[in-house]
């Protein structure tokens, strides 16, 4: 593959001579404008292998979830779906208290998402477009807070939860996650480019105060980024594991906490465990099928200048 490139690459592919170039030029027409090279069959093969590797464990969990304990304890593992999927899903749903866990998690993740997006947009707007004292230092401080590992906060938070008797109450999980440094940074990066300063000025000339500016100018401009940040936050909140495991018990769990309880029988039923793992992941997988493009775009956008 490297051979091709030792030839001079002309700006306009159509003017290129030589059979190799001609083939490339023809293929280049199919793609979008831009100077990048096409991938060959090897590229596709490697990517396909990794795509499969990413999906197959999930598919296999679905296959395992459709078999009985006895079938899963045979020398040759099953490679296609069996007939017990719904039985296992039902048992996982009941054993792990998944119904309650789902409702809890939807509530927790939604609250966290709304507050994170709201506060991140406000702070991101201030950092992107407003002038105030010590702005750069404060922005560095925001980024610095990302370095604090969760282990460093659980001991006092556990003590506080014990003191307030909040153990098993959802606010114990929600409150510590209401803001996110990544969110602030993400919204700042977006609003720096996407929000024209003239628009804010024009609103100010019309006599709008800052709150009105936020409502009528910033929120509309920030809406695409808010949607993406919302999805990313929801995924993270849904999957949050360490602190909920400490603060909650199986009586009032989130999905992740409930899943840890699944494997704890004397003889664990792998089919039921897999059914539970599948159920706990399903909402996010559906979201990925529907909004995969936006989530990919969001991560890539957030990465720039990261």
């Amino acid at each position, binding site marked *: 593959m490297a051979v091709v490139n030792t030839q001079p690459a002309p700006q306009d592919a159509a003017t290129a001579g030589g059979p190799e170039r001609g083939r490339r030029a023809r293929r280049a027409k199919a793609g979008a404008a831009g100077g990048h090279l096409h991938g060959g069959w090897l590229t596709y093969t490697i990517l396909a292998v990794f795509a499969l590797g990413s999906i197959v464990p999930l598919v296999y969990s679905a296959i395992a979830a459709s078999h009985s304990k006895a079938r899963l304890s045979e020398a*040759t593992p099953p490679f296609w779906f069996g007939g017990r999927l719904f039985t296992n899903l039902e048992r996982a749903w009941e054993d792990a208290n998944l119904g309650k866990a789902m409702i809890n998690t939807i509530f927790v993740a939604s609250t966290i998402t709304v507050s994170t997006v709201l506060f991140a947009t406000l702070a991101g707007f201030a950092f992107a477009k407003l002038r105030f004292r010590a702005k750069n230092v404060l922005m560095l401080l925001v980024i610095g807070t990302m370095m604090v590992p969760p282990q460093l906060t659980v001991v006092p938070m556990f003590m506080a939860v014990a003191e307030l008797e909040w153990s098993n109450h959802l606010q114990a999980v929600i409150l510590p996650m209401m803001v996110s440094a990544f969110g602030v940074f993400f919204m700042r990066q977006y609003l720096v480019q996407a929000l024209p300063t003239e628009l804010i000025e024009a609103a100010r000339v019309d006599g709008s105060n800052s709150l009105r500016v936020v409502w009528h100018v910033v929120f509309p401009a920030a809406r695409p980024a808010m949607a993406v940040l919302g999805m990313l936050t929801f995924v993270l909140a849904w999957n949050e594991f360490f602190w909920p495991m400490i603060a909650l018990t199986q009586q009032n769990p989130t999905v992740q906490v409930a899943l840890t309880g699944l494997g704890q029988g004397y003889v664990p039923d792998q089919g039921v465990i897999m059914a539970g793992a599948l159920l706990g992941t399903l909402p996010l997988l559906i979201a990925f099928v529907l909004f995969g493009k936006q989530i990919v775009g969001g991560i890539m956008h957030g990465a720039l200048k990261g």
Partner: protein
Amino acid sequence: MTTEHREAAPPAKGGAAPRPTPPASGTARPAPGPKEQRRAERRSRRYRWDLKYSPYAFISPFFLFFAAFGLFPLLYTGWSALHSASMLTPNEMEWVGFENFTRLWEDEFFWKALRNTFTIGIISTVPQLLMALGLAHLLNYRLRGSMFFRVAILTPYATSIAAATLVFAMLYGRDYGVINWALDLIGIDRVDWQAGTWSSQFAVSTIVIWRWTGYNTLIYLAAMQAVPNDLYESAALDGASRWKQFIHITLPSLRPTILFTVVVSTIGATQLFGEPLLFAGDPSGGTQNQYQTLGLYMYEMGWINRHLGRAAAIAWTMFLLLIIIGIIYWVVTRWVSRSSGEEE
């Protein structure tokens, strides 16, 4: 309009630049009456206050929450680390000074956990980032179905630690796992994945690699797409091969991004907790603690052995380790950028 433009023309610099006179002060209007003038003054004062203090109002929620749920616990963890506190009575603490730390120093389980964290960190992070770099390079070609590949490699990101670990624990099962079945098929001895040190650490690392490779790929891809095309074009004109372009253009342009992912992955590796916990189903990290990480050991100390003070001491040790690693990274990047003679 021209007067208004003064307001935003200079780039925001964070310093205490003199605030421009607000437009509502009415200097341009002809001879306002005293009553109107007072109202205009009031409005202009409110306008100035709004301009001056609203930025702080907008950023304060973040800092308030961080102070309450980040900074304060961080410091209080340090304070608890100097005390003896039981999980059963978490609010009765007894001062013990640095005893928790000196006990850690003599604690073989601590050193083992530290070693495990380090080795699992290396074997989960290095291959992961290298693969992500390669995948991003491939995805940067013009492809059909490019978005499909991106979403596909990101699906593990949607899978929670708990779900992913349960699935992999089954795949790695000693007696009925698919991986051992496949090994059997090609004539290699079955491996008791959980029992061995290397096999268990390898297995735990694959869970981390599986979950995060796609995410890092997208971050690299974003950085690659930001590299100007003419750099590649002129390099190709000079006869540089694809490989040379990758080494001499792509990698140097990606250096800040690579550093960013290395830092984030290091932080993640230091905190590794859920994967080793659920791989066996208990916080000991294997019968010989062969894959017990620091995060797991801290949990075991605090919530199984019920010594919250000593758990806090482990947490602070982890934090200090992160700071030391951060300083090493900083020195290394300084040194690299200076020795290669480039300006950062």
